[in-house]
């Protein structure tokens, strides 16, 4: 084969026939199950013009996950009212995060113009950007940078450009029962305190899924470990990874952490904790409101994620960003919406009306916000110290390699040594598939 010739599938008759046949089949398959390959490769997307928002008009359709708290619809309505020229509408396209991702990928792959803006989970940025699906928001982010917390902006970065604007953020917190256990100062102290009595145990998200990756990375980052370095080399095969894995599995053996965490994602962990049989819980900020409605309301406290003794705490960021579709027909309207959604004023509403973590630092010290969210100071500490999850277009595979192998160690089916080697191998293979 001539390697210098561009690989065109149209270079001979036979291939053209095959292509036509596959195109028909693809259309059928795509309409039947929505899977399959994209009709195009990666291409260079245009950039958003920060000034364009001022003269925008028309309609903007924002698409994303089911709006449980009403924040998306609420923001769209408030924007429409405040702007006067652009009308925004929120369309739910998936009941769960996974389902929303599938739906978004389908629309982006199919160059659909239905949605101008997509609500994207922070871990999707590099994958979507690498496919040429998103509008480059570098100029817009640069223009708004002074109102955004730097760690939240990092989640929108891929290859030195910004591909989305943060809308609200999220960081892990430790909930603790004040009458049983002390406020956590370090992971060692938390685990030691939790082991003192069965009722003091620690619960977290240890099921084999994305949440376990997050729980593990929070400890790994605090220990100074990393998955990929800035050049993208695999760095997970390290002493820090082994130390954290041993610490976590010892914790399950000596009763610091309840063994049931092996089956917990966010909600089961919260429900178990509400029984009052545990001392500590790692969960997201939304749990604060729910715990307040239980008999534990007067006895629980909130703390940022601890550091290792003598080290610095470093969590993992969650949250949702606003990405403009490369095929949007109203990019100016989308820019206007992002401008509105990230204003310091609206970010206060994000906290007060919807209990989500703002991406604007000033909001956390606002008196009205503090009244609704008394743990805002702890939350800000967690958010500012947090780092993004490994930035890579093959993040889903990297995360899978992490949670499957971490789970194998925690459930006792693999040794730390074997799991670390396998994790590094699988991450290297995943990177090679891109």
């Amino acid at each position: 084969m001539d390697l210098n010739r561009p690989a065109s599938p149209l270079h001979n008759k036979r291939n053209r026939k095959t292509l036509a046949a596959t195109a028909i089949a693809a259309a059928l398959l795509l309409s039947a199950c929505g899977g399959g390959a994209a009709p195009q490769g990666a291409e260079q997307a245009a950039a958003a013009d920060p000034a364009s928002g001022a003269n925008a008009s028309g309609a903007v359709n924002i698409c994303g996950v089911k709006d449980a708290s009403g924040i998306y619809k609420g923001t769209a309505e408030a924007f429409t009212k405040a702007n006067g020229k652009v009308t925004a509408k929120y369309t739910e396209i998936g009941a769960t995060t996974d389902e929303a991702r599938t739906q978004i990928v389908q629309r982006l792959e199919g160059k659909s113009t239905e949605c101008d803006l997509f609500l994207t989970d922070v871990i999707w940025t590099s994958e979507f950007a690498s496919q040429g699906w998103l509008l480059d928001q570098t100029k817009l982010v640069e223009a708004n940078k002074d109102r955004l917390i730097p760690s939240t902006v990092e989640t929108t970065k891929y290859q030195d450009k910004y591909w989305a604007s943060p809308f609200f953020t999220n960081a892990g917190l430790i909930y603790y029962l004040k009458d049983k256990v002390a406020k956590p100062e370090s992971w060692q102290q938390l685990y030691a305190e939790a082991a003192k009595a069965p009722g003091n145990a620690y619960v977290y998200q240890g099921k084999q899924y994305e949440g376990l990756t997050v729980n593990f990375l929070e400890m790994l980052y605090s220990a100074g470990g990393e998955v990929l370095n800035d050049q993208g080399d695999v760095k997970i095969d390290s002493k820090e990874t082994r130390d954290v894995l041993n610490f976590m599995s010892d914790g399950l053996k000596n009763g610091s952490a309840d063994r049931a965490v092996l089956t917990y994602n966010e909600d089961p962990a919260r429900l178990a904790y509400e029984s009052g049989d545990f001392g500590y819980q790692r969960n997201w900020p939304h749990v604060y409101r729910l715990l307040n409605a239980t008999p534990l309301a007067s006895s629980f406290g909130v703390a940022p994620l601890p550091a290792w003794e003598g080290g610095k705490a470093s969590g993992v960021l969650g949250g949702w960003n606003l990405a403009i579709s490369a095929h949007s027909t109203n990019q100016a309207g989308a820019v206007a919406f992002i401008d509105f959604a990230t204003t310091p004023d609206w970010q206060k509403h994000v906290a007060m009306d919807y209990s989500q973590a703002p991406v604007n630092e000033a909001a956390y010290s606002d008196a009205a916000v503090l009244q609704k969210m008394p743990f805002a100071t702890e939350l800000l500490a967690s958010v500012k110290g947090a780092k993004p999850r490994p930035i890579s277009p093959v993040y889903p595979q990297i995360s899978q390699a992490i949670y499957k192998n971490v789970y194998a160690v925690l459930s006792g089916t693999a040794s730390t040594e074997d799991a670390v080697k396998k994790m590094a191998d699988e991450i290297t293979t995943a990177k090679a598939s891109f």
Partner: protein
Amino acid sequence: MATKTIVPGAPPSAPSNAPRTNARDRAERRLAFRMTAPSLILMALVAAVPIGYAIWLSLNQYSVRTAGLSRFVGLDNYIAALTSQEWWAAFGQTFTFAAFSVTLELILGTAMALLLNLAFKGRALLRTVVLLPYAIVTVVSAITWQTMFQPDLGLVTNVLSALGLPGGDVVWLGERGYAMAVIVLADVWKTTPFAALIILAGLQVISAETYEAAELDGASKWQTFVHITLPLLRPAIVLAAIFRTMDALRVFDLPFVLTRGANGTESMSMLAYGELRENRLVGEGSALSILTFLTVMVVSVIYIRFGGGNIRDVAKEEQ
């Protein structure tokens, strides 16, 4: 003896006493073909074409970077799958699940059908109620089972603890073996009514005269069951077994919700889903889907060859 009853799975029966000529036979066959042609074409479009396309995809490698551009790699994806630990683990786990769940469903389904076949007041209502678990969306029932087996909070674990039985302090979904047991239980709970329904249809085909004759011959209840009911029920049971096995070998939602495949519960479908949808590795994922499809097909052919022949035999006997 009833001659017009339809046994599930039996071919439509032609009046057998009229002698037929070859010409008439051929004409009938031509007519049959013409009448079924539209549906055959439709089937080809909705089933054969996507399957053919999936086979084509499985022979190619797509990287995430070049979503639309593929490289023909022949059987590489299959070789990679068949030499991987993951595929054989999923293969074994899926068959373990299918063996346990289908066996239990057939035994319980037969018992349930016998019960529902008795004449008693409120039978119609009970028949409807019994079908309820089957009507519940699997994902919803999976979440319910997950909650019931949760340590500390779960209904099952609490009841076991309260009664002083073992298992109250087991993290059911977090241990190998136990996790599979919960998934089998959830499936049995949900689909036994379906097996019962098919077997009940088979039961109602057996004529009352057969039983009367047995009674006259002085057969005991047990003898009647073993020598009359069970052999006559066999086609229905085989049919239920085929349906249930095919479903069980494609199982996805229960392990996906309950364990995400941890603790030895990852099924073949979950493996394919992971590559196709989560990792967007179209070639590898398609190869895994085709392998799953072939596995289900081979098992179905074995069933029809060794069990399905009896469906026709019994149908003939009935006439």
